[in-house]
């Protein structure tokens, strides 16, 4: 069984009359790259701030490394964070800022600071004061801070904000490297779906403070991939006919009205002919394939209905 790094149960955060996070359930396993997807103001940052103790939960609870919200203080050193905008002391250089946090975390091997700066390509400007940094450089320093001391869990809120395309691509590789080589679990939030899709292996869709769906990359691929959608009043019999007569196993019964066939070796005309000749009432049949954006819109639309 996979080790759970972070689990929330009914986590709720209310600000007076506004519910920023509404009974959120999520599970992050060790070595996951977990993508939090949602629009601006969806509740991604509130979720991150709640599990890192920057804001207090109203209801529900969470566990980090098996310790609940009242017990996890000693586990904080295993977490690296970049929440909202990167915040450092403007009068200190990049190196001095990281050294400050290295002292805080009790890091004795100060070479780790250079390693972190190297990882985010800031070695050349490490003696430059933070106030003179561009937005992208500040963002990279924030990521270097989160990576300091090789944490077991890194939580990054919109880490690619302000980065140029090459920077984004380099960062994506860095995340993969940290995940694969050092076994670090990452939770990354973004509203740029394609970027998260490129790096994460599990996803949480969130809207208006409510969790819409938690899916793995395989499940997401399946939901978004090209398929033939068959709508009928007898999906059970339809599924048997698809398996027996067409020899297709690559399909999914969505509900009692819909079947999706993912096999690329069959056309909708053949499927329709076979089902109708077998006596099944087919109310609708069409080819479908949704983009990630459309999928998200669909999810948000379903909830708002």
């Amino acid at each position, binding site marked *: 069984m996979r080790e759970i790094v972070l689990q929330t149960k009914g986590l709720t955060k209310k600000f007076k009359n506004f519910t920023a996070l509404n009974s959120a359930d999520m599970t992050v396993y060790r070595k996951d790259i977990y993508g939090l997807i949602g629009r601006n103001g969806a509740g991604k940052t509130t979720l991150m*701030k709640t599990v*890192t*103790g*920057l*804001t*207090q939960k109203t209801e529900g609870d969470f566990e980090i490394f098996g310790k609940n919200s009242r017990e996890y*203080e000693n586990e*904080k*050193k295993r*977490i*690296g*964070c970049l*929440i*909202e*905008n990167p*915040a*450092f*002391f*403007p*009068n*200190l250089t990049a190196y*001095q800022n990281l*050294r*400050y*946090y*290295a*002292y*805080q*975390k*009790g890091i004795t091997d100060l070479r780790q600071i250079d390693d972190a700066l190297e990882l985010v390509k800031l070695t050349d400007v490490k003696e430059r004061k933070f106030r003179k940094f561009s937005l992208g450089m500040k963002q990279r320093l924030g990521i270097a*801070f*989160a990576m300091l001391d090789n*944490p077991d869990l890194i*939580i990054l809120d919109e880490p690619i904000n302000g980065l140029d395309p090459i920077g984004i691509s380099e960062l994506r590789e860095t995340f993969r490297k940290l995940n694969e080589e050092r076994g670090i679990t990452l939770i990354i939030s973004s509203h740029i779906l394609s970027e998260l899709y490129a790096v994460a292996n599990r996803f949480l869709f969130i809207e208006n403070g409510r969790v819409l769906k938690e899916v793995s990359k395989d499940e997401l691929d399946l939901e978004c991939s090209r398929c033939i959608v068959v709508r009928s009043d007898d999906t059970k019999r339809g599924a048997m006919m698809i398996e027996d007569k067409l020899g297709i196993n690559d399909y999914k019964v969505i509900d009692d009205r819909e079947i999706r066939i993912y096999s690329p070796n069959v056309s909708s005309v053949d499927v329709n002919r076979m089902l109708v000749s077998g006596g099944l009432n087919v109310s609708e049949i069409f080819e479908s394939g949704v983009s990630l954006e459309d999928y998200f819109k669909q999810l948000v639309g379903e909830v708002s209905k």
Partner: protein
Amino acid sequence: MINICRADIYRILRSKGFYIILGVVLLLICFTLAAMEPGVVFSIGLQQSDVSEAIKEISYDEYSHFTIKQSRDFLMHSPVYWLERDYLSQNMNYYYMFIVIAVITITSDFSNGSVKNTLSSAISRRKYYMAKAGLAAALCLSVLLFSTLMVHLGMRLFNSSANILSFAELMKIFVLQLPVALTLVSILVGLSFIFRKTAVINGVTIPLVMVFQLFMMIAKNLIKWDIPFEDYELSSMFYFMAHDPSSSYIVKCCLICGALILAFNIAGYTSFKKAEIR
């Protein structure tokens, strides 16, 4: 907590604020030693300076026409005037230095937003509060000790013909004033954790003592209200603690200071514990 303090000392030693404080303290001491009168950042004490006692043998009118050199010579040879005691009795002046220390130790962390880095991946709010409050107190008391020792050293080097307190007497005054100084620090620490923004802290703490003194002055001089707690107001405590206080006065002061230290720290911590960190 030690790690937090260590990191903050590393940072503070790289900021200008702390060196500016030390510079102002040295300037104040130089002025004090040269003029033989305590240098005052801002006159906020209700108590008079010891100079008024020393000039009783001459008229105030005569003294007011003295040049700095004449008043220096007069006070230097006065048998009743002790500059160090007078200087230490005006330690309420350090309130303004303490504001700067509270800002560079605590509120700069909130203003930059860097506090969220510490709280999200280093320590709990309780330990953070204790570390910051402890460090602010240590720095403030260090500055106070530094100024006390520098005045004493300066007196021995440059004003050796004047009355000079023994080292033991000097330290006795410092120790007696400690609860009052800690109260001052606690007020600033508490307010820093309640308001959490440098601009707000400056806006609240800088006029705070002046407003308080104004009310006291109005009560005393306009309404002719015989304020029972006048002797237990912080600047008075600094003054009397430097002038051989009675045991009962020391006990009362310690109790008042203890209550204020507790009240402001509880208020600060409670507010910080519930605060949304931005």
